Structures are given as C-alpha cells and as structure tokens.
C-alpha cells in the first residue's frame, strides 16, 4: 500500500513509565512501566482486574493517569501522536446503524486522511479482512465475529504508527484468529510497535517477541519468552510405568501435573535430579526422563496465581 510506504520509515519505541491510577480506594495501577520497541509484538497478560485495560486507556489518553507518562520516540505522547495510534478498545463499539464502509471511511477521515485515501484504505481493509460482501450492511446486522473484524479494520484503517489492542482475539473463530495474527505480524514487520492484551497464553507465546505480566496493578515480569521461562525453576518430564504418586515424597520436588504419558515435576532451586530418577526407577520402568522449558501458562500461574515473582 502506498500509505504504508510513507510511514514505515518512522520507527518509534513506546515507553510506559511509572503509571499510577486509583479509583477511590482501589489502586488500579501502581508504577506500571514497560517498553515496546519498533516492530515489536508485545503481549500484555494478567488476570481479570489486573490493570491491562486501565493501562491501555491511559496510553490512548481516554483516561488520565494520576502519575507517570507515556512516551513515544522519547517524547511525551501528545494529541498528534495519539491520532496515529490504532486502538481496539476492550468494549467494542461502532455506530450500530452505519454501514461497514461508511464507518471505516468516517474513522479514517477523523484521523486526518483525505476522502480519497480514506476510501482506498477502507476498501483495502474490508477486502483484507474478508468482509467484502458485508461492506454495505449496517454494523448491527453483523455477527459478533464480523463486527470484531470491522473493529480491527477500524483500528488499522488510518495506517497507524502504533497499535494498541485490548483483547483482540476474544470472540474470533480460528480462521479469524489466523487472519488477525497475520495482520499483527505484518504490521510489526513494517516497524510498528504492537501492544495487545490477551488471556490466550498459547497464542501470546506463539506470536509475541516480548511480553509483560501484570498483577494487581504492578508489573511482575517483562521480557522475551525465553528470558522469562529460562529464569524459572527447573522442570522435569518423567514417564514411569507404575503407580502415580511416586514423586510425592521426594525432597524439593513438586508435582505440577500429569499429561497422561508422563508426570510433570518442578524442582526447587537445589533439589537433586538424581534423587528424582532413583525414586522413578523404584516406582517402575522409566520410559522418559527429560528437562523441559516451562510453558507461558505455567509461568503465568507461578507468577500471578502463586505470587512467586522472581
């Protein structure tokens, strides 16, 4: 697209620094900070009520922070820069009685595109997101998933220099998830920093370069998947033809789960692997014995649910 070429050269990094926000007695955010480099896909995860939406709203200026700031390319974000953000709010919203095309053209124009560019961009995204045959329908007549596609188009139609998407994958069918993933990767490849929140950790793990985990309004982990999972405790996968529960009494070992073929174990910092192997052999024939890297889901559970931040 002609539009893209014009902006790819601009490479911004987005910094969120020291954000604080209170709602009465509720501390929604407490010193939240992270950086998203140009062309980086950043996953923002955390339990319900952790503060993801609040952070994103502050980034968009829809909500005012009590303290802290958002910087783009080193300078505090202003109106003009905000107009270059593509935003998908958590609570989706478009004019129910406007047609898909009119809606997208209007939003593009509000972001400063000329009438012609707005039409071109709207048609492009309509085609790209597979809603061509619905383009003259009112939004309210579309299924939820299709409304969501329009919502993504609305976030992209003005060729944003930064994408902030609040749970963009919720409510999408697998095909749409793929389309959405492709689009996000493509935008990142163009140098656009992409921040999105999600509860689908497998997806975040597959898609993101880096991620941030937020708990009760504070960042508890920020980094690449490798960094975060490597820093976590040693994990073993042990297959034994024997009675389950064989590992319960081994010192410094915690049973994390069982995937049917093997038992998943987590070892405390100085626990002895050899002791585990001995216990396994005592229980029955050992079919498998390997280290494995923690999945994001496990990391998340550790960091968020059990509160064992590193």
């Amino acid at each position, binding site marked *: 697209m002609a539009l893209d070429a014009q902006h790819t050269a601009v490479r911004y990094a987005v910094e969120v620094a020291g954000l604080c926000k209170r709602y009465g007695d509720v501390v929604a955010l407490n010193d939240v900070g992270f950086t998203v480099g140009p062309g980086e896909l950043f996953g923002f995860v955390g339990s319900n009520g952790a503060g993801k939406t609040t952070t994103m709203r502050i980034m968009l200026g829809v909500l005012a922070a009590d303290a802290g700031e958002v910087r783009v390319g080193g300078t505090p974000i202003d109106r003009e820069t905000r107009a270059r953000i593509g935003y998908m*709010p958590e*609570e*989706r*919203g*478009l*004019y129910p009685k406007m047609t898909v095309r009119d809606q997208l053209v209007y*939003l593009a*124009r*509000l972001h400063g595109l000329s009438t012609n560019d707005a039409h071109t961009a709207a048609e492009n995204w309509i085609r790209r997101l597979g809603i061509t045959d619905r383009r003259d329908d009112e939004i309210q007549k579309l299924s939820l998933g299709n409304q969501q596609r329009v919502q993504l188009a609305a976030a992209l139609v003005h060729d944003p220099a930064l994408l902030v998407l609040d749970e963009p994958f919720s409510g999408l069918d697998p095909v749409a998830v793929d389309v959405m993933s492709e689009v996000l990767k493509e935008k990142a490849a163009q140098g656009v920093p992409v921040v999105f929140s999600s509860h689908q950790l497998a997806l975040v793990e597959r898609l993101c370069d880096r991620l941030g985990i937020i708990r009760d309004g504070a960042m508890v982990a920020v980094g690449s998947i490798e960094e975060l999972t490597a820093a976590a405790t040693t994990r073993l996968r042990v297959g034994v033809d024997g009675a389950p529960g064989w590992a319960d009494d081994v010192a410094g070992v915690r049973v994390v789960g069982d995937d049917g073929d093997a038992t998943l174990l987590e070892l405390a910092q100085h626990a002895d692997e050899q002791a585990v192997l001995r216990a396994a052999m005592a229980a029955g024939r050992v079919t498998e014995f390997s280290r494995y890297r923690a999945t994001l889901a496990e990391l998340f559970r550790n960091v968020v649910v059990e509160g064992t931040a590193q």
Partner: protein
Amino acid sequence: MTSAVRLVAQRELVLRLRTKWFLIGTLVIVAIMAGYVLLQMSFFGGEDRSRIGFAGQATGLSERVADAAAELDIDVETTTVVDLTAAKADLSDGSLDAVVSGTAAEMRVLVKEELNPRLRAVLTELSRQEVLTAKLAQAGVPDPTAVMAEANAARVDVTAIDPGSAADDQRLAIGVIMVFLLFMSINTYGTFVAQGVVEEKSSRVVEILLATIRPWQLLLGKIIGIGLVGLIQLVAIAAAGIALALAADVLTLSSVAVSTLVWGAIWYLLGFFLYAALFAGSGALVSRQEDAQSVLTPVTLVLVVGFVAGLNVMIVDADGVAARAMSLVPLLSPVLMPGRIAASDVAVWELALAIGLTLATIALVTYLGGRIYHNAVLHTGSRMKLTAALRG
C-alpha cells in the same frame, strides 16, 4: 482540529437527512398545515363565494354586478344561464346561489331559500341607480351619467385609531404557529442530541472517537450537525406554510410572514444551542437508551411549561405585561419572542435584551453542559450523579 468538528457535523447532517423519517416527517407536517389552510379557506373563502347566473336580458348586467360586489368585498362568480330548468336544478343542489333575469330597473332574482342580504343590497343598489338615471333623464338633467358617477364617487373619510388591529388576527395566528413550530423543533432536535450522545455511549463507539478527537469537538460537531437538520426542516415547513397560505389568500401580510420566518430561524438557532447543551449534558449522565427518558424529562418539562404558559398569555394579550415579562426569561425567550414579534410590536430594547440574556445563558449552559459531558461521557454502568459529573 476544527476539521474534526466539521466531519462530526457532516456525519450527523448526511445521516439524518438521508433517513426516510426526515422526509416523511417534514411532508406530514406540511400536509397538516396545508389541511389547516384549506380548512380556513372553506370557512372564510368558499362559504363566502356566491355564484350568480344571469339569464336573458340580464346577461349584460353580469359585469356591473361583479364590479359592485368587488367594491364591497363580496366574492362573486358569474355565469350565463341558458336553460332555466337546468338553472333551477343547480339552485336546488347548491351549485348556483341566485339566478338574475329581467332588466336592470326590474330585476327578478330566483333563489333556493333566501337571498344573501349583502348580495341583495348590491342588486338593489344597481336597480336603484338604473331607476335614478332614468328619472334624472326624464327630469331634463343634461348629463345624468356624469351626475351618477359623481354621486357614486362620494366616499366617507374613515380614520382608524388603531390601524393594525384589523390584521391582528392574522398576526396572532402566524405568531401562534411560529411558537408551536419552534417548540416542536427545539424539543425534537434537542432530544435527538441527547439520543445521539446516549447512542454513542451505549454502543461504546465514544471510546474510539475520543481516542482521536476531543470531547468538545465531538459535542460541538454533533450539536451543529443536528441543529442544521432541524433548521432545514423548520425553514422548509415554515416557507411551505407561508407560501400555501399566501397562495390561498388566507394570509395577506406577506411582509409580516417573511420577517416572522427570519426571526423564527434566528430564535430557533438561539434556542437550539441553549437547549442542546442541556440535553447533551443530561444524555451523557446515562449509558443506556432505556435510562435516557428519566434524565431528559426535567429539560423537556421546562420547555413544555414555557410553551404552554407562554402560548396562553400570548393569546390573551401578546402585548400584555405577562407576555412581555415571560418573553425576556432566557429559557423561555426562544419560544416566546418570535411569537410576540409576529403577533405584536416588540420594542428594539426588548429584543436586544432578550437576545443578550439568551446569549449569556447559552455561554453558561454550554460551559456546564460541556463540563458534564466531558466528565460523564466515558463513564459506563449506572446513571452518574449530576454533582459528580459537575465536579469531575
């Protein structure tokens, strides 16, 4: 970023002008007004018109009768009667009012029941003149026609103490209609502003809008856009009404009508801006269309009270103390002032004061309404308290 305001206004304007309800609504109101005008015509025009048939020798009189009737402001339509039997049938079914035959000096008039007394006077006068002319000639007066012309030219000299009052009924009617139209327009389009605000809140589209433009731009654009739609409708309806009434001769004061229209448009704008900010602020307090009515009722109530009370004092006496005082109250002026301008003569200082007070109130209300809107528009869930919205 005033282009944002223009874009928002444009969206409202185009979307609303395109709906079939705008067209249908406008046409229905014009049709009602046309019906009203026709009703007036049949009361004051149609009933008054007399159809007179002239038979035989009397045919030559038709023009003189028509002229004499016109002089007395009697509307007559003349026809020639050939077949007397058919004419009698026309008399009995009412399509003819009288059939004149005979000579000017000895006129015979055939009617169904009785002859309209004013028409009788016209015919009698004509007959008398004919006899008089003949007698004058008999008496040897040299130029009887000249004497008759001189006699006929004699007029009484009338001086009216209150020359306007003959037109007062028409002016009051124009005023009342204008008050009604203004009340309707301000109320309807003000409610549209509130509904638009609530729609943006309930559909949550407001969040992406406000991620791009500022609240005041969204609000101002919306008010301008919807206000223009209302203005277009008001002017279209009023112009159509005036044109109809003038064409049908129900209305003869075209200058009053035009000035009423111009003032109506000006006061519509003042009133709309005044109430739009109130409506928008109220609408912003709620997040669901179902809750809208409860917050809009107080605003609508002020308008309705002003309208009903104002209309009553105006009909009783448009120049009375009550009407004059009420038309200066800022929230009531937009509805009452244009009515008074049509119905009576408003002093320049009164008009200036009313406009000044209204503008000042607009500034205040826009500040408050804008503040409420700004603080409440992103608030979701339950209805927001007014005090909380004002504090922010």
